């Protein structure tokens, strides 16, 4: 099927992790190449000259950037469990929620944890509003993808794993069982899934990373 390389970070990025999940779901063998974003390699600059970011998937010498675009590419190219639904409407909904997570959830919750004062208060409100929508969406479902992990679950990895860790480090309560019982349940389901567990970064390493920021 051609050589596959994944330009990743130093093991902490949720965006790189999304691609790792998709590759693992499809059973694709690949070479992981670590990138230090403070010292960008010629390979990264060659394959993602526009944004100079990871992840970048290099398949058969051709580079693809942007995590969700890479995930859809992987779903299209390799056999194995479907990451996106087959039904056009369900596909549209999956894309909608994945985009919502990227544009509304991640930036708001990240800011809420790292900022202070008025900016933090504003980000906290935005986070709560965004998480409420996700809470409604996950009600009655094991995963966002239904019985199996799908695009939205992969996109929501930051919410399920990174956010609780950052919240603990920074002492900022956002995703609590009391406020978001269904999303909380999903996060636990997701992180304890045997498949997902294997590729999530080590918690202690992540904690150390965030403490050192």
């Amino acid at each position, binding site marked *: 099927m051609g050589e596959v390389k994944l330009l990743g970070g130093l093991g902490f990025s949720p965006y790189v992790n999304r691609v790792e999940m998709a590759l693992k779901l499809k059973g694709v063998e690949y070479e992981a190449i670590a990138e230090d974003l403070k010292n960008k390699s010629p390979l990264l600059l060659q394959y993602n000259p*526009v944004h100079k970011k990871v992840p970048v998937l290099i*398949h058969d010498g*051709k580079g*693809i*950037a*942007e995590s969700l*675009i*890479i995930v*859809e*590419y992987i779903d*299209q*190219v390799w056999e194995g469990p479907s990451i996106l639904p087959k039904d*056009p*409407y369900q*596909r*549209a*909904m999956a*894309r*909608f929620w994945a*985009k*919502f997570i990227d544009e*509304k959830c991640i930036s708001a919750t990240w800011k809420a944890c790292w900022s202070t004062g008025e900016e933090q208060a504003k980000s906290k409100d935005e986070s709560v509003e965004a998480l409420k*929508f996700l809470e409604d969406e996950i009600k009655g479902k094991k995963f966002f993808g239904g019985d199996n992990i799908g695009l939205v679950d992969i996109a929501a990895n930051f919410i399920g794993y990174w956010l609780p860790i950052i919240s603990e480090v920074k002492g900022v309560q956002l995703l609590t069982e009391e406020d978001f019982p269904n999303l909380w349940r999903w996060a636990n389901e997701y992180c304890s899934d045997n498949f997902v567990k294997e590729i999530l970064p080590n918690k202690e390493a992540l904690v150390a990373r965030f403490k050192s920021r």
Partner: protein
Amino acid sequence: MATSGVKLYGGRPSPYVNRVEMALEMKSVDYELVEMNPYEKSELLIKLNPIHKKVPVLVHGDRPICESLIIVQYIDDAWTNGPSILPTDPYDRAIARFWAAFVDDKFFPLLRQMRDTKEEEAKRLVFEKVLEAFVLLEGAFITCSKGKAFFGGDTVGYLDIALGSFVGYLRVSEMMNANYKILDETKTPCLAGWAERLYSDSLVKDAMLDPHKLLESLTKLQALSKTDSD
């Protein structure tokens, strides 16, 4: 595929609504355009799009779909007759998506910033950034078109729609002030030629936004809105 019960909510001047029109035209889908003022968050708009409260919203049967590029992809998936909007090759498809995201995440915000900057020198600086981004898109055109007429090759496709919906606005920029010419055949000759071809392409020409009418609508809308809530 049944073409009954297709409604597109949104206003003519919006390039995002226009993308959906272009896609529907490509697939020859009969639809009803329901004009909505995007600055008035009506009860109906909130019901159709509770999360973002924005247009366009496509309602097919009784199911609403939001976000212009997601709608365009839905149209491609749901109506399998007619030309394909997205490339069939996975790599070409990924590249088309990459540049469409670039239009939304980098190019359009710069255009909007340029429009909103009143002070001449500051505006000039943003204009330079707009041109830089446009030059990147020129490069994308050369890669994607592979020597053919459109980003999609011989026929218009996803990226033609994603960027083509802004062409009317690029013309308006120049009409309002000749110093702000973005579609410049000396700087981005491929895109300048491409923009012309869109207005005569049989698949999308009926949906392309007329810059003169746009200028009129824009003036009216700006008078109605208190704050710009793009």
